[in-house]
């Protein structure tokens, strides 16, 4: 596609439920990133994929959060037993993936706004 797409654009769920957020990166981009943006804050790094593998998942806040990218393209961020504090905009970005040391530009999707009631 022309850009990074994320679905759904909005998700309302109840505390304790499970949610999945999807990211479709730019075609050909092997690097993919998930961020979380709380109100009034900048994006906070969650996880970085190079191809199918998570090269750095140190930003995941706890074991309720998990992300996969089984075929090296689409990625899904999964949140179990959601809590009200998980409410935020979840951003996905992709880049060419030629190497982190090259300072590649990340292209961001519009985000998924998650509200946990």
């Amino acid at each position, binding site marked *: 596609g022309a850009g990074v797409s994320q679905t759904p654009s909005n998700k309302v769920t109840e505390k304790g439920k499970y949610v999945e957020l999807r990211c479709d990166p730019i075609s050909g981009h092997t690097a993919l*990133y998930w961020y979380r943006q709380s109100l009034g804050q*900048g994006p*906070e790094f969650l996880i*970085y994929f190079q191809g199918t593998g998570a090269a750095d998942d140190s930003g995941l806040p706890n074991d309720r959060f998990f992300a996969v990218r089984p075929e090296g393209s689409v990625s899904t961020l999964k949140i179990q037993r959601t809590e009200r504090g998980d409410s935020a905009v979840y951003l996905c*970005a992709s880049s060419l993936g030629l190497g982190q040391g090259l*300072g590649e530009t*990340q292209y961001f999707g519009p985000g998924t706004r998650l509200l946990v009631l």
Partner: protein
Amino acid sequence: AQSVTQLDSQVPVFEEAPVELRCNYSSSVSVYLFWYVQYPNQGLQLLLKYLSGSTLVKGINGFEAEFNKSQTSFHLRKPSVHISDTAEYFCAVFYTGGFKTIFGAGTRLFVKA
């Protein structure tokens, strides 16, 4: 700890006036620096970036930024702003040797007629 500080949460300015949005980061051996802009109801897009070379970097829409290693700063400037520049601006730093890009909290630029 690695951190990025945007010193102003909001900057109101009149149209055609100059503006500077400030960004400081915690010291490190080597960094890449970025400014992103987020227009209302849109995703983040890159304004400019510094990787190496000339410390003055020019970006889209007439913006520029200057890397100052001794002051660990990367301030964003525009000599004459337009109403359409109203948006949130994020400074971001990539510390080489790792995988994370760390973002500041953002500065909301509000351009008044």
